[in-house]
């Protein structure tokens, strides 16, 4: 556990780009994994083409790039419980929550019960979530 003098800030990681076309999806995930050690209040937000980062069934064999999509499913182990996906971004891309991975975490305050960590949210709710953050990282 890293010592931040007990300061806990609301950290938000905003993802707006599709995976593989650029490195931002992968390298932003790397920040999230490292950040887990700092015990901050973490939220991930996926908007616009960022929603494609969470699709199921990514197969990168044909493009010769490493498939890092399984890392999203492991986020629960890194204490990431709040993954927000913008509803409008999904809808305008003809996607639904069924196209996305199922993300879960184990709630230590509820006998390690497995709970959903991915939430599809509408514009107003997402706007409020972002507005409440202390530190926003964009990639």
């Amino acid at each position, binding site marked *: 556990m890293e010592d*931040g003098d007990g300061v806990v800030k609301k950290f938000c990681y905003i993802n707006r780009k599709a995976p593989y076309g650029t490195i931002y999806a992968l*390298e932003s995930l*790397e*920040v999230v994994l*490292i950040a887990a050690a700092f015990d*901050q209040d973490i939220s991930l937000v996926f908007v616009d083409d960022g929603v494609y980062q969470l699709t199921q069934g990514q197969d990168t064999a044909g493009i010769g790039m490493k498939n890092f999509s399984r890392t999203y499913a492991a986020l629960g182990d890194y204490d990431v419980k709040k993954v927000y996906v913008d509803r409008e971004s999904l809808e305008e891309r003809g996607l639904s929550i069924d196209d996305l991975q199922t993300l879960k975490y184990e709630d230590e305050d509820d006998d390690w019960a497995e709970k959903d960590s991915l939430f599809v949210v509408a514009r107003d709710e997402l706007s409020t979530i972002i507005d409440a953050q202390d*530190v926003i*990282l*964009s*990639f």
Partner: protein
Amino acid sequence: MKFGIVINEGPYTHQSSDSALQFVKAAISKGHEIFRVFFYHDGVNNGTSLGVPPQDDRNLTKEWSALATQYDLDLVVCVAAAQRRGMLDEDEMKRHGKSAHNLAAGFRISGLGQLVEAGIQADRLVTFGD
């Protein structure tokens, strides 16, 4: 206030490094403190000691190095992003058996924890990117 600055793009191709430089200068002139400047993604390329930009234009690496010296700035190049892109200091060169190192004066290589720490310790984190 204390500022954390994040630069996501390399020199010249994007305006990010320039905008960040102007922002940092303005912040300093207004009496604020720069807690850290963190270079991520292609931003690590701002730390190259091998750049030879045209003489009649700015030399971004030298400008950052000079600012670091003048105001004791902490310029941090992310180790993981740097390794991917071939930006190495002497230690990294030896560690990975490479034939050369290319990190410019005033920059240091460190981990992503430094970025997170900047987010925690600084009053404001400002990101310049694409």
